[in-house]
């Protein structure tokens, strides 16, 4: 049976997703996942949600997919052990060193590789399985044939996003540092936790600079104006039976940073689609198309709003850094330990 895993960008969003038929919900921990803190949960909320899910026979999976500092790892492991003791069934992790440590300490929890692992072939999947991964999330662009090659050559759970990139553009995330190149700031909080504003990989949110207006030129001759660098993924539907037949057994609804209402409606929609597919072979999914189109429009509107906000943050941080640099001119830096 395929598991539908929905986002819990807020406690309310998570509860709605459970009510609409998600078997599991994934929630980010403040400071430890690849989203801004407004879409992450604090420990108390996570504990309440685990209890809520357990009472209903459902699951919570915890997203701790930043690529941490080496010195943060003990804190990282402590947190995982705490969530596991509360009943969290699985964890999304990017750093392969952390992945192995979690597997050694908690061999019975599920380890999902994060998108940050940037899988591109079945040998990657074998590597990750060797060090303890029980589910691997595959990139948006993989075809059913490529997924089938992976399932034929490996023995792990296959997780796939319910959105995909229809055409080219840069690979993201996992292999992109564009955001932090322009805007980045590191600081330590009172607990010694590292924070990296501007770095998606390190938990500071991607500031979506790729979605700004760029000019593409050869030498000094411009031939494209006002373009974005990355193609945005889109919600999809028709290929779902083919992906399930290829071996996908965990479908991930995206949208931790979308509205509670949009995620609620998406989960309801995909629940109906999956139930239709389960009922018979070669189901006709055409009747779902108009609804899918309306979801795509709502998705696109919310994404544009988010991108504008994040690009604005990138610009403000860049300005702040430039001003700070102008004020501070001399401080000794010593690399020797």
């Amino acid at each position, binding site marked *: 049976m395929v598991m539908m895993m929905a986002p819990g960008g807020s406690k309310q969003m998570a509860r709605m997703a459970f009510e609409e038929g998600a078997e599991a919900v994934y929630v980010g921990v403040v400071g430890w996942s690849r989203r801004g803190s407004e879409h992450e949960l604090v420990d108390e909320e996570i504990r309440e949600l685990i209890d809520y899910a357990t009472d209903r026979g459902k699951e919570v999976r915890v997203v701790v997919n930043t690529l941490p500092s080496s010195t943060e790892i003990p804190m990282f492991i402590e947190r995982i052990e705490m969530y596991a003791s509360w009943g969290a069934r699985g964890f999304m992790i990017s750093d392969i060193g952390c992945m192995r440590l979690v597997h050694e300490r908690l061999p019975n929890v599920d380890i999902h590789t994060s998108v940050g692992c940037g899988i591109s072939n079945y040998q990657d999947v074998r590597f990750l399985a060797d060090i303890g991964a029980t589910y691997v999330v595959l990139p948006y662009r993989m075809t059913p044939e*490529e997924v089938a090659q992976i399932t034929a050559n490996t023995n792990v759970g296959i997780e796939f996003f319910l959105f995909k990139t229809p055409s*080219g553009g*840069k690979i993201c995330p996992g*292999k992109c540092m*564009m955001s*932090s190149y322009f805007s980045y700031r590191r600081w330590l909080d009172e607990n010694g936790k590292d924070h990296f504003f501007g770095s998606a990989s390190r938990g500071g949110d991607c500031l979506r600079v790729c979605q700004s207006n760029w000019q593409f030129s050869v030498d000094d001759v411009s031939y494209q104006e006002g373009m974005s660098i990355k193609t945005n993924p889109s919600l999809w539907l028709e290929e779902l039976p083919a992906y399930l037949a290829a071996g996908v057994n965990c479908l991930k609804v995206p949208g931790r940073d979308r509205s509670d209402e949009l995620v609620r409606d998406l989960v309801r929609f995909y629940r109906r689609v999956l139930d239709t597919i389960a009922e018979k072979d070669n189901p006709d999914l055409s009747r779902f198309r108009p609804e899918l189109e309306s979801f795509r429009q709502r998705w696109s509107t919310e994404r544009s709003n988010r991108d504008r906000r994040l690009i604005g943050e990138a610009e403000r941080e860049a300005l702040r850094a430039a001003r700070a640099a102008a004020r501070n001119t001399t*401080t000794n830096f010593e690399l020797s330990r």
Partner: protein
Amino acid sequence: MFELSTDVASPTLLEQGDYSAYDALYLGDFSCPNFPNNFTSNPELLAEAVKTVHSQGKKCYLRLYAVPSNHDLTWVRSLIEAALALPFDGLEVHNLGLLRMLREMGCTKPLHLGVFGNLYTDATARVVKEYGVTRVYPNPELSLKEAIYIRDNTPIEVLIPVHGKIPLVISETCFIQEHTEGTTVGQCTFTCNEEHWLTRSEGEWSLKDTGRMTLSGSDLCMLEHVESLAAAKLTAFYVQSHGETAEFVSKVGSIYRQALTRAFAGIPVGDLTSHVAELSALARMGLCNGYYFESAGRRYVGRDIVCDTGRA
């Protein structure tokens, strides 16, 4: 005492370039296997190349394709088989699947984890070390102190890029080809030979694009910090020259060779103003320090830097 290395994509570049300042060369362009005569995808070119590099008294490493799909694994395996039969001093790997494949193939050569290996922690360095990795290129987002922490706590050798554009994004598809009118997949005309730039007027942001890889607009420049690098006992340094001219490779190498030699001998490097000006003249979008001092990658702060020195 130290090793200064750079990259060379093809036999033509190897023949035409002046690499006298370098101790080691990384052969191949790991981003695009379709580029003509790329060492990374043409095993028939390797024997002559490794012989040439060794005859110059340099170490010779081979770069493997960074983002192989399932269908690429067959040809990459053939390339590795050819490389293992030759006296390469090491192979650079970005992809974890290839790392596993190398172990399956019984590779005993030293392995270097490349920039897109996404190495952020000593815990990860310990994992890849078990697979034969002896040198790691930490993710560019790490500060120098974090790189040193990984070196000391794994322990493992770390490669420190000292100059050149920072690899920021890699893709399995070609951005230039996708945005060049009249070009279809499979009919590449290699317009990446010309310089492609992405610029944004608000904020004066810029990036250089080489098709399958996006690089920083500014050139990383650590010349003013070579004494700190030597004092920290870092030993492996790298000049990123993908997409650069022969003049860039030669001049940058020469300037760093001179400065590093003095720094490692304990001789003050002195006034570097003229050298920084030379490097700046080669950098169309200026210089930066990357993330080494915990600020946005594009900033350059020279010797007068602001940095939290508290912990790694």
